[in-house]
Structures are given as C-alpha cells and as structure tokens.
C-alpha cells in the first residue's frame, strides 16, 4: 500500500520528479566520469609500465631484483615456460635477457637498454610488433634489432643502418657486436623510446656471452587481478631457494606510491564534487518539501500519523534515488564505454610537456564496474542522508500553519 502510494505520489507531479531525477542522475554521471578518468589513467600507467618494464609477474634468480646485473641471470629449468603457460589464468610466459650497453653509430654514442626477446612471446607483453613505426619486425633467429625511435634520432640512424653495441657480458666477458636495424619502435613512455634496443633472444644471449640464460621470465596473466593467485601457484611449483617470484606491486613500489598520492588529490576533488552535487540535491528536496507543505498539512489534519507520512516520503525519496541512479548509469555507461575504447589524445602542444614527465599524453577512461557502483552508492547514500530534511520538517510542522503557508 505504502509503496503504491509512494509510486503514485512520485508521478503526480511529473515535472518536479524529473527535475529531481535529472539532478541526481547528473551527479552520478559527473562523479563517475571523473572517477573513471582517474582510475583509467592509473590503469593505463600501470599497464604501460607493467607491459613494458616487468610484466605482471616475474621469475628471477633469487637476489636478481636487488642486484640487477647480468651475473644474476639463470638457466631456466627445462619446461619452465610450458609449465607456467599451462597454469590457469596465465596468458603467456615471456623470456627476457636484459642489460645495458653502449650504442654507437658513426661518431655518436649513448647508453642503451638492450633487451633480448622472443618476438612471438613478446607480442603478449609489450606487443613490440604493433609499436613499429618504421621498418619491419624481427624473427627469433634474426640477427637484426629493433630500436626506440628516440634513440635512433639521437644517433642519427635510419632503418637499415648498422648499430654497434659494446658492453660487458655475463661473467665479465667482452661483448661487442654489429647489428642491422630492422625497424624503429615507439612506446607510450618516452623514457623507453629513448633508450631501448630489442634484440632476438639467441642473438642477445650470444652478444652477452650468456647462452641459454635469462635474467627474467615475465608472466602475463589474463586479468590483472589474477596476479596474486597465479604468483602463489608459481611459487608452489618452483624451488624458492633458487628463484624469486615477484608481482608488479613489489617490483614497482614507486608507481604504486605515485598513484596513491595522486589518488588522494583525486579523492579530495571528488569530495568537493560531491559537496556541490549534495547541495544541488538538497535544493530539489527543499523545493519539494516547500511545495508539498499544504499537502502534508492536510494529511496530518485528516489523521495520518506523522511516522506514516515520514515513511511515505522516505519511500518516495528512495524510489527517486533508485530511478535517478539507474538513469545516471544508463547515460554514463555509453559515454564511458566510448571513451574507454577511444581515449582522448591530447593536442600536439601538450605532448612535449607530458613527455617531460614521462607520462603518456592521453586521457584514458576506465570502465571497471567499481567506477559505477561506488558512485551509485555514494549518491544513493547522499540522497538518504538529505532526506533527513523533509522528514524533520514533517515531524515539526503544525498542520494549520502548514496549510496556511503552503497555499
């Protein structure tokens, strides 16, 4: 009965209801867009770094992470790759051999990070072959390399030129070699584009005198959230006195910290937004209470209990809030979905500024469910708290004055 009454009451004054719904729905849309953009940037940052630097999980020789030198490379146990790839939630296991070398062309030289990769496996992680801006990809047994376009620019190199690499290899061996540049690659993180050289794994192992060795086996999981479970599984299968298995959170604490700090400022902005939204919603409730003062007076005069009237108004507000939140969802979902597929790329003039901070000049959006649900809950809860005003008003009004004032 109460519900029916509330439902009818809502639609008695359509215009008022629609204004209220729109104001709440707008609140949901605004806050979820904002949150989506924040979380989306974090996801993108994490994804960029994780996908480039580390992968979500890495297996190394015990102690490699503390001292990242070639001498801490390991011989992967036979079948390690297949064994890991057969685990649930694992997309691929990607072998890596990385160290630094002096890259030189004609009279210019610069330090470079030389990463030995299995080009086929690597497509699961960095997707190198999709980042090629010029030239062609390399095969596993190719003696050619892919280099970051920033590094190539610095050295004045083009596709087809011969890059000279000099370094110290495994156990201090002399490492020097000439490699034809097959293609140029460009990554979201400028730091990488400026120093990376990808070399097929066998060539890199020969270059560093590290035949059969890897510095890391990176694991790509189907879902970022599977990381902890997969890590546990791998730990169960490996000899932990010889190997370490690390999640990206352990490997990149500065990324997490950076995100946490940014997140706090984001949350403060969000609170301010809620405040503004809250006042907007309060305004509509205030208007509603004022408008219906006469009605309330009549109801009380004809003998309706104050608490029953309060319950009625409360049900109305709950119904309104539910409708509004759903409407907010319905409107923000396609927008966020669109932007999460097509992130906003910043215009050229901002790009350089962003690149100085090693940030990809893109506004990405997240369409994780949490974006919507958290906003919905907050706005819904706000509506409930704000309903205290009409309820209080009902508790206090004197039917006679209410009828007189309300007219």
């Amino acid at each position, binding site marked *: 009965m109460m519900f029916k009454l509330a439902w009818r009451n809502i639609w008695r004054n359509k215009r008022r209801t629609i204004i209220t719904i729109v104001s709440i729905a707008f609140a949901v849309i605004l806050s979820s867009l904002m949150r989506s953009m924040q979380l989306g940037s974090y996801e993108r940052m994490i994804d960029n770094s994780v996908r480039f630097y580390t992968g979500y999980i890495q297996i190394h020789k015990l102690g490699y992470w503390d001292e990242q030198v070639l001498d801490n490379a390991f011989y992967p146990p036979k079948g390690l790759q297949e064994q890991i790839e057969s685990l649930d939630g694992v997309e691929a296991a990607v072998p890596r051999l990385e160290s630094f070398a002096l890259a030189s062309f004609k009279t210019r030289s610069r330090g470079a990070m030389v990463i030995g990769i299995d080009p086929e496996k690597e497509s699961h992680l960095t997707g190198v072959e999709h980042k090629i801006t010029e030239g062609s990809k390399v095969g596993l047994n190719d003696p050619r390399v892919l280099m970051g376009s920033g590094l190539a620019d610095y050295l004045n190199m083009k596709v087809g030129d011969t890059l*000279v690499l000099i370094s110290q290899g495994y156990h201090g061996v*002399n490492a020097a070699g000439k490699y034809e540049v097959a293609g140029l690659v460009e990554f979201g993180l400028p730091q990488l584009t400026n120093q990376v050289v990808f070399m097929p794994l066998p060539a890199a192992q020969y270059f560093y005198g590290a035949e059969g060795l890897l510095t890391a086996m990176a694991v790509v999981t189907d879902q970022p959230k599977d990381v902890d479970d997969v890590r546990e599984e791998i730990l169960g299968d490996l000899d932990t006195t010889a190997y370490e298995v690390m999640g990206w959170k352990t490997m990149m604490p500065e990324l997490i910290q950076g995100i946490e700090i940014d997140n706090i400022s984001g949350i403060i902005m969000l609170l301010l937004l809620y405040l503004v939204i809250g006042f907007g919603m309060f305004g509509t409730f205030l208007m509603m209470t004022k408008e219906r003062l006469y009605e309330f007076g009549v109801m009380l005069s004809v003998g309706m209990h104050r608490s029953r009237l309060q319950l009625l108004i409360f049900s109305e507000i709950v119904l309104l809030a539910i409708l509004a939140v759903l409407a907010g969802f319905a409107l923000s979902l396609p927008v966020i979905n669109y932007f999460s597929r097509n992130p906003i790329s910043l215009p050229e003039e901002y790009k350089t500024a962003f690149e100085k901070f090693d940030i990809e000049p893109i506004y990405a959006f997240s369409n994780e469910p949490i974006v919507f649900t958290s906003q919905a809950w907050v706005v819904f809860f706000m509506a409930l708290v704000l309903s205290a005003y009409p309820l209080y008003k009902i508790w206090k009004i004197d039917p006679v004055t209410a009828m007189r004032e309300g007219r």
Partner: protein
Amino acid sequence: MKSTLWLALSLISSFLYAQDASEIIKKVDQKMRGNSSSSNMTMKIVRPDWSREISMKGWSLGTDFSLILITAPARDQGTAFLKRDKELWNWQPTIDRVVKLPPSMMTQSWMGSDFTNDDLVKESSIVNDYNHFIRGDTTITARDAWKIELIPKEGAPVVWGRILIYVSKADYIELLIKYYDEDEFLINTMILSDIREMGGRVIPARMDMIPAENPEYRTVIHYNDIQFDIGISEDFFSIQKMKRIR
C-alpha cells in the same frame, strides 16, 4: 760531532742499501721481461661459483711496447690489445673498430679479470717510477728472499701508494707482491709460483692475482711457453699489425 758522524754513516748506508735495492729490482725486471719476448698464456678468472678461461698470445719489446692477442674462447678470438708507451688500444674484430681506451676506463677490469687496464699499461714502471728500499730478509716457500719496499717518486704517474716485493735471493725472482693504496690499505696480492725453466730462463710460470676486497676471487695467469730476445722491432707494435695478427 759524534752524532753528525752517525747521521752521515746512516745516510751513506741507506743510500747504499737503496742502490742495492734498485739493482735488485732492475735485475728482476730484466729477468721477467728480457729485451723482447713472445709468449703463450692462459688466464683463468676464478670466482666462488664460476670460472672462465681465456687463452692468449703476447709479444713485448722493452717496457714500452706490448701486444696481446686473444685466441680463445671463439667469441673473443682475434680481439687484441696494443700497448704503446702509456697508451692502450683495443681492436674488436666483431665490430671492426679500434678503440683507444680513455683514461676513465683505465681503472676498469681487463677482460673481466682482477687486473685493471691500468695494470697492463703501468706495470712496467717499477724500475723508473719508484724509490726502492730493502726492508729485511724472509723466507717464502722455502726460498730466502729480500723484502723490498717501493715508494713512488714524487710526481710519478702511478696508482699505488706503496708496493712490497719479495724477491728470491738465489735467482732474482719475484715471489710475492703486495700492492697498497695511498692510505696504506692492501689492495691486491700477487703470488708467483711454479718456478721453472722456460725459454732459457728460470722464471715463475704462474701468477695469482688476489684482490684484498674479495679474497675468494682470483685471476691466474699461466705461461705455457715463452721465448726471449726474439728479434722484433717497434714496427711490430702498430695498429695495422694489431688488426692483422693471428
């Protein structure tokens, strides 16, 4: 008067001693180096959990010229180091490049061993760049030996603050060398052993270099054969020769 006499006497005696020590060092240096030489060596780098061997050929003329060619392992074959005076050149056949090692690289490890590039260049100046003093007699591996202290001359371009060389009295062979830095800390110890006749001279065929910082590390150089006075000239020690030599 008496004290003056004492002073004079002690000065003379230390002077004589010093002369004597320098003579010994000169003989030692001559013995090991000869006027010219060619040799076949194996260098073994030993670490607690691995070791690595490098084979090489070496030529030298006096103290100013030497050439080292790596013959094994295969990946380094043909790599050569040329020392001319105080300069060190490196030929890398894999990249077709001759690199003059810059001063900044002098303190870096040579081929991953416990020797530095500097050791290759400066090792020869023990005769000219130091003052020599005999600091007593000892016995090392059943051989009577002088303990000789080398203090760098003022302005000499050396890296050590002090070197102690133990020289066998019987045949002027270095048995033990200790290198100290300017703050009197022991940096490297070199043990010379396996003394036998090679190329007509009695010399130590094995040298162990042990860094004081990591006593379980060592680099062992072993002479497989050596010839002295082979009649090569300065022309042999050229960059062109370094590239061609096999």
